[in-house]
């Protein structure tokens, strides 16, 4: 039997649009081990975000199962924390209140003063210690996502689901946030790593962060390939991009993605 934290089996999702049903995901199966960081990557429209909304519990699949710790998933759950691309934070709460509100949802036993202390701690970790009293509208997009990550981590859920959290951020801040997430997730070895499912269309982001990468093919979304990322942790982007293997691995991933697109538009296979 499997010891995976998350087990996805034969997952099929149908969307109904204009009275026509179409197949968004078809027979998707893979597992995510405890403490593992798995990225789901694919061209837009491949159903990767749909997959995540099933894991979040916001969308019910047409077929197949998702199990967490061996129990079938039904709806949202307190063991899962989520970071969306947009609007993870409530605009009417200050940054700190947002984090405290999150903590309150998953950690009932924690008192108000302790909540405030934890919120401050995580604000400091993401570099927002001076912005706790600000509203999300007063922060840049990058700062809002920092706060959303701080909330997700402060909630201390076993699983983190992240749906393209950095794709709306400018290139420079995206790099900074990737490094920040990497550092916070890898930790200093004293704490257990969280199980993460991370959806992205950014190849470099996926390689930098993940233990494994699930490549999806579109129409309908199916698993094309699952790759182990062969780089030691702790990682840093600067060291990683220097190595020859990085370039090779990146090209392999690229060809997997582009061949899929080339097939769909009827072009030749891309040779890289």
């Amino acid at each position, binding site marked *: 039997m499997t010891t995976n934290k998350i087990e996805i089996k034969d997952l099929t999702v149908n969307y109904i649009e204009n009275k026509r049903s179409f197949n968004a995901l078809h027979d998707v199966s893979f597992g995510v081990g405890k403490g593992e960081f798995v990225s789901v990557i694919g061209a837009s429209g491949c159903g990767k975000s749909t997959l995540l909304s099933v894991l*979040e*519990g*916001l969308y019910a699949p047409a077929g197949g199962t998702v199990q967490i710790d061996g129990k079938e998933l039904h709806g*949202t*759950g*307190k063991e*899962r*924390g*989520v970071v*969306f691309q*947009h*609007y*993870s*934070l*409530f*605009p*009417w*709460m200050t940054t700190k209140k947002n984090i405290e*509100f*999150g903590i309150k*949802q*998953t950690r009932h036993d924690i008192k108000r003063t302790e909540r405030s202390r934890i919120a401050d701690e995580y604000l400091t970790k993401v570099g927002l210690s001076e912005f706790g009293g600000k*509203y*999300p*509208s007063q922060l840049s997009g990058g700062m809002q996502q920092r706060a959303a990550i701080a909330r997700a981590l402060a909630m201390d859920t076993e699983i983190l*689901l992240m749906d393209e959290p950095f794709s709306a951020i400018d290139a420079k801040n995206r790099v900074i946030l990737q490094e920040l997430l990497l550092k916070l997730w890898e930790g200093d070895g004293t704490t257990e790593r969280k199980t993460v499912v991370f959806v992205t269309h950014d190849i470099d982001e996926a390689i930098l962060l993940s233990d494994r990468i699930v490549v999806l093919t579109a129409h309908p979304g199916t698993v094309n390939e699952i790759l182990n990322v062969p780089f030691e942790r702790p990682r840093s982007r600067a060291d990683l991009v220097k190595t020859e293997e990085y370039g090779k691995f990146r090209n392999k991933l690229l060809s997997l993605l582009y061949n899929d697109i080339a097939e769909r538009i009827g072009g030749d296979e891309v040779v890289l």
Partner: protein
Amino acid sequence: MTLKKRYLRIAHILFIILLLIQLLPAQSTKATHTSSLVTFAIGFEALVLVGSALIKKEESLALLVDIAGFVYILLAAWSLATAKYNYLNDLLFPAPGKVIHQFVIDRDKITENIKSSLITIVKGFVFAVAAAVPLGLIIGWNARTGNAATYITKFFSSIPPIVYIPYGIALLPTFKSVSVFVIFLATFWPVFAGTMSGVLGVDKKIIDSAKVLNVSKPEMLFKVILPASLQQIFLGCNQGLSVSFILLTSAEMINAKDGMGYYVKYYSDFGDYTRTITGLLVIGFVVIGVTFLFNKLQNYLLRWKR
């Protein structure tokens, strides 16, 4: 800002012109109470000067002195047309000093009437908001009832609340309770409709964010949906408030024993047009004051918006 920009404005010249006009001999046969007008103008100018010294933003300062300028022009034209040259019928058109004088004499009576009107408004308004917001949240949040209720609300809010007055009089024991009842109806429907349209229009992403946090049902309604719909709720409240003032003053003119509408109606029945005009102006100030405070509250509660 230079001293010149701050203190040398046309408004202050208009102030001096207004005072000079008061030196002209009065031609009106009635009492003109010029000294009341002069005292008022000096007091007002003093406030404007204090304001000019304190205000930091240039646009706000310009707004203040421009408003002051309009007030001086109005008072100057008014006193010329009445007290000084008596162009207008001095029974129907009292001199400005007379109105100010009347306000000072009647101030206790006026305060009483304002209080009575405001208590009625606040009662009806607060009851209506307290009932409409939770109901709107619950009914709007339930997708099925939400859509049906929108149509029902459209029907009921299309009935002008003033036509409830005769029925209210038959239904309720006192005229005060009728006024509260009508203000309640006038506020309830727009606030209820505003709340529901707010709930139905909440961004799905915000609701998803709350769902994945596993918030409880009361938290979903009052900590997520309520603040997310607040702007629409305030739209309804503002509509309710302005209709309430129209209704209340109309109702007070029908049958009341106190209130601002009563004050105006009572004295105009006696041909006391000084008091009638005093009453009109006071109502204007009260409505502006209440609206101003309500806007302050709204801006405070929506301070998180950009």
